């Protein structure tokens, strides 16, 4: 076995382990902040998998979009909300957990079955386009995938307008759900340290 293949196998094993353990941590950990940071780790490892597949542009885009934008905004929102309150205990938490676990396991078994039964049309490593993939992605985006690309931009524009309307306090002076006047203060008001309750 050549050194390159050994390195690849080691990288793949480590990345997959990080993805699986990290994803479990995102779901199972009590602390929402830890979950958010672990999510970033999972996104990074997925980018690593793309790199192993010779898709460096997709890997960089994954880091830029998912880690740099999505994950940062999730963490940002968690820290801005800055609420330290204990969640209300739910009575039938056990049965809920059993139901959600069984649904997830069913989905997992379905995916595994698809993976095993489907005949994957894999191209040989010699045919991989490697560095040229950036150009190919661009060509596809402006030819056969033009319509989905443009529709996605319209969708993003709608989301942006919605966010601006929600964020502009002078447009929405009342809270939509409660009807109470909205707190007009700046967001950077004096705030308690987040972890004061920790032992």
């Amino acid at each position: 076995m050549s050194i390159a293949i050994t390195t690849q196998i080691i990288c793949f094993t480590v990345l997959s382990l990080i993805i699986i353990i990290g994803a479990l941590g995102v779901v199972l950990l009590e602390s929402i902040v830890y979950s958010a940071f672990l999510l970033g780790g999972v996104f990074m490892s997925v980018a690593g998998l793309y790199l192993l597949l010779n898709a460096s542009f997709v890997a960089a885009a994954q880091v830029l979009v998912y880690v740099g934008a999505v994950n940062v905004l999730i963490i940002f929102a968690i820290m801005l909300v800055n609420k330290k309150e204990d969640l209300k205990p739910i009575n039938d938490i056990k049965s809920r957990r059993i139901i959600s676990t069984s649904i997830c396991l069913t989905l997992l078994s379905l995916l595994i079955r698809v993976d095993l039964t489907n005949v994957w049309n894999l191209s040989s490593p010699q045919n991989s386009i490697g560095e040229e993939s950036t150009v190919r992605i661009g060509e596809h985006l402006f030819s056969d995938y033009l319509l989905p690309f443009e529709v996605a931009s319209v969708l993003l524009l709608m989301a942006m307008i919605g966010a601006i309307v929600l964020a502009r306090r002078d447009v929405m002076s009342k809270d939509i759900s409660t009807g109470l006047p909205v707190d007009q203060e700046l967001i950077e008001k004096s705030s308690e340290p987040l972890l004061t309750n920790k032992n």
Partner: protein
Amino acid sequence: MEYGLDLEYSFNEFLKGFGLSSEIAHIIWLPLPMLLVLVAAVVGVLVTVWLERKISAAAQQRIGPEYAGALGVLQPIADGLKLLVKEDIIPAKADGILFTAGPILVLVPVILSWLIVPFGQNLLISNVGIGIFLWIALSSIQPIGLLMSGYASNNKYSLLGGLRAAAQSISYEIPLALSVLAIVLMTNSLSTIDIVNQQSGAGILSWNIWRQPVGFIVFWICALAECERLPFDLPEAEEELVAGYQTEYAGMKFALFYLGSYINLILSALLVSILYLGGWGFPIPVELIAKFLNLPINAPFIQVFTASIGIVMTVLKAYLLVFIAILLRWTTPRVRIDQLLDLGWKFLLPISLANLLITAGLKLAFPQFFGG
């Protein structure tokens, strides 16, 4: 343009002479450029710290470091040693894991970005195809580390500093990426090597700064904001936030932040010189000089000479920009947070978008000047 020193090839041939297989030779080669660049980055930081101390002293009519070595050149080493031997404190009510991971997450992407900084035709760690895009992607990881350390310190100043750092770096990333995109549009490639080669035609006249003056200014402002240098050092504004996300840090962990910010400054300066100031190119093309002196461009002597000129030019341009950044830091006041965000979203973003559009139009109209 396949000339220039190929150290890797010569090194591998040299090792094969001892009867090693090419794979082993490659593995022995791999860590060498990485170590070299790491050492270069750290030495660059030491020089920048010394420059910062001396130039700030000159700006305030002081003498600055004087006794540690000639002109105080050993002062940064003394600073580093002091930080090394200090006690490594984790505050009692802080979150230990995140508190430790934060500085690492800030420093690692910055060092990783040196992968794509070329000092010559073959003088870079890896000419990856995504080139400059790799830097943009990696620099977007940093805010996570800042938020992490801000949160884990369990201190309201730290948290506010971390939030400000993240907001600032998200807002300035977009105009930064757009101005890089205009360059990429002219080069038809993301690779830093191609970007420099595209500017090497007519020496100083073909540098991108003449074709992208607006992009240059936008990029420089955004790079300063990404480095959190004054006028944009709100995340660590000492009058308001003690030291922002660094407040609770001491010893080596603080040193990691310190190192990270200075490596980032040098990296930004290097990238400005690569994208806009012709990278390793001499103001007069080296080929022209060689032709004028009737010297063959591929002779080993000329090759070594051009490679050293390339390194000197890259470093010189970068340090010129570092000098400007230091002067800016010690002569300008800090902007307010609303001015900062206004500048980013309402001024730089539209300007860089318009710049991109005009570049695309000019590329169609004058393909010979703006890259066909």
